[in-house]
């Protein structure tokens, strides 16, 4: 008889911590252009490897290579570059505004801009995102006014959400951007519900769910997969694996699975991993998944492999849990630098034009910020009336809220 082992609890730990030299040697960077582009009606079991590989289009020289290198036109590439630069410039101004006390809180998408900017470019009007708090690129790409974003961040008199919500928790039905909840994971299944409704209603719109690597551990993630699978919902389920969930490395959420994408396979959902810092690849994979949904083949799960280059939020200081230089060593590079290199290699862009565009974008962001500040900032100037707190709790103000508002004297 074998003797029983005395157990000890296994708790995963990251490769390196503050003070260590960042080590991504175990992270294999696949060669661009090598992953097959299957037909969109493919079964999950026939593209098992896609959940473990990484689809990459842009090679080290910025050339678009392989079967996924199609569909991104010159003007789309340039718009993508501009959108990402806008997000980054916007983020840096708003981060500064938070430090200056003009708002309470901010979250950047630094290093992850390609994921949302490229994805949005693959959607059609009427499609609906159920975003996380780090997908401001969806709004910027869809042409939502930067001024409205800033007004929301400042909770000022022109804030479309009347100061009710935390900064960056935007909402715009018109721009296909569902109201952000602070509660992780809840919206992944709602995206599936929206897609099911589109099917029930005989519509042709698709939904996109968004979730972070950390939040895939929430039960709602699994709810989304089982509903999407069972009802073949016309949706795209995006996991943004930026390696970190506040201080927790991705191994805590992933456990012993090789990838987050592989979670989809057990539900029979075609699951792909894509280089999230490769604008072209994200765009191509999103287009593929959208076409799949439109043709009635149901959901696709996409894991965007990227890196959270900044702190989790303005309340966080990552130097307490990861090496300071880890972001710089991230093997998939910077999404803006890579698309810029591609556009130059394609002959449609240059260093000079890039510099000029940067200056234009920065000054546009600053100009918009000044305009927004005329409407007030969190602690200064005009804002929505406090009476507004009582509005929209229900469609009609019920008697008890009327009474409370009267008692409040506002």
């Amino acid at each position: 008889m074998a003797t029983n082992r005395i157990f000890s609890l296994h708790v995963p730990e990251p490769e390196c911590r503050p003070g260590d030299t960042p080590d991504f040697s175990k992270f294999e960077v696949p060669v661009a252009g090598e992953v097959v582009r299957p037909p969109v009606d493919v079964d999950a079991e026939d593209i098992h490897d896609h959940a473990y590989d990484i689809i990459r289009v842009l090679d080290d020289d910025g050339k678009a290579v392989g079967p996924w290198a199609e569909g991104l036109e010159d003007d789309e590439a340039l718009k993508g570059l501009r959108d990402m630069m806008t997000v980054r410039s916007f983020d840096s101004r708003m981060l500064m505004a938070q430090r200056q006390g003009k708002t309470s809180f901010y979250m950047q998408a630094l290093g992850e801009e390609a994921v949302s900017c490229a994805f949005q470019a693959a959607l059609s009007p009427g499609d609906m995102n159920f975003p996380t708090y780090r997908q401001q690129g969806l709004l910027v790409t869809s042409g939502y006014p930067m001024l409205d974003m800033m007004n929301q961040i400042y909770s000022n008199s022109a804030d479309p959400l009347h100061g009710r919500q935390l900064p960056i928790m935007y909402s715009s039905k018109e721009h296909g951007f569902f109201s952000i909840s602070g509660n992780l994971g809840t919206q992944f299944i709602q995206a599936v519900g929206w897609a099911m409704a589109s099917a029930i209603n005989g519509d042709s719109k698709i939904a996109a769910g968004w979730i972070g690597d950390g939040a895939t551990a929430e039960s709602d993630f699994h709810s989304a997969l089982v509903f999407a699978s069972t009802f073949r919902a016309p949706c795209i389920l995006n996991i943004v694996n930026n390696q970190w969930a506040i201080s927790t490395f991705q191994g805590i959420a992933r456990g012993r699975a090789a990838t987050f994408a592989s979670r989809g396979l057990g539900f029979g959902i075609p699951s792909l991993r894509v280089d999230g810092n490769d604008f072209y690849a994200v765009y191509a994979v999103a287009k593929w998944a959208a076409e799949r949904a439109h043709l009635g083949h149901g959901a696709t799960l996409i894991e965007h492999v990227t890196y959270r280059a900044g702190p989790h939020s303005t309340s966080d200081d990552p130097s307490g849990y990861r090496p300071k230089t880890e972001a710089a060593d991230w093997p998939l590079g910077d999404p803006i630098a890579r698309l810029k290199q591609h556009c130059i290699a394609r002959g449609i862009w240059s260093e000079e034009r890039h510099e000029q565009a940067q200056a234009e974008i920065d000054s546009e962001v600053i100009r918009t910020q000044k305009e927004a500040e005329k409407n007030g900032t969190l602690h200064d100037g005009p804002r929505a009336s406090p009476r507004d707190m009582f509005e929209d709790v229900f469609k009609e103000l019920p008697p008890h809220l009327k009474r409370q508002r009267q008692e409040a004297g506002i």
Partner: protein
Amino acid sequence: MARMTMIEAIRDAQDVAMSRDEKVVVFGQDVGYFGGVFRCTKGLQEKYGLQRCFDTPINESGIVGAAVGMGAYGLRPCVEIQFADYMYPAFDQIVSEAARLRHRSNKDFTAPLTIRMPTGGGIYGGQTHSQSPEALFAHVSGLKTMIPSNPYDAKGMLIAAIEDDDPVVFLEPKRLYNGPFDGYHEKAVTPWSKHELGEVPEGHYTVPVGKAAIRRPGEAVTILAYGTMVHVALAAAEETGIDAEVVDLRSIVPLDMETIEASVRKTGRCVVVHEATLTAGFGAELVALISQHCFWHLQAPPIRVTGYDTPYPHAHEWEYFPGPVRVGAALKTVMEAS
């Protein structure tokens, strides 16, 4: 004795509990290596090892469910939910499992766990970092619910909670972590080091579960409060010059009815305050109990001063928060009646 912030006191309580009893384990999101987003578990992993203090996946149901399983095995888990606003995915595990396990198994299995969570507003956290859900827990049979108002209590109550054989929800008013807060947000924060209840004994001690504390003796009116609102109530008494007796409940289940009754019978007037929304808040329970047990001593109808029945706002935090001005107005109203 040492001066501690409430964060340090909470950390110290877990340290003491872990050092005395190796069955105490601590886990939750970001609590391991980093020591918690509010730093309430800082250093515990380093001191007690990965097996006894660790990070978990982001799944609140999983955190509490695992704690129930561990508790049934015989451990004493003390888990952290990062914000009370994020406890809802764990609600089923708390309500249907932890709270009823002892009863339904005829004490064959029990759930001796502590579920810590930062609660309350005051930090511009908007609707997802400001809620006060204590009434939801108080409504459930089989759960104890505690809310400390200062570092001394936080440590003694948390040790008592961890040593308690029943499940305890331990709500930590996050606005009090670094200093007492009386509702005047524009004033500089007074640190706990300047407050006598920031004086925290070293080592082991407990604050008895279900025992209220009188923070300010008074003859004119009783204010029932807990957490942040204790400090707001004290400020309101000070400002109005009304001789209010401020009772810090500390625990809402079990509830110290003896202290409450004695105070209300003495003063004949009562104001109940909490940050949480009004309707079916814990204030409703308190007013019902007072009406029943102190009816013949009352000289005025009891008044509740609470958050409004709206989601917690971001920009209008200070219009929403039941600060000293609102509490003071209620004090005047109960004093004027009859």
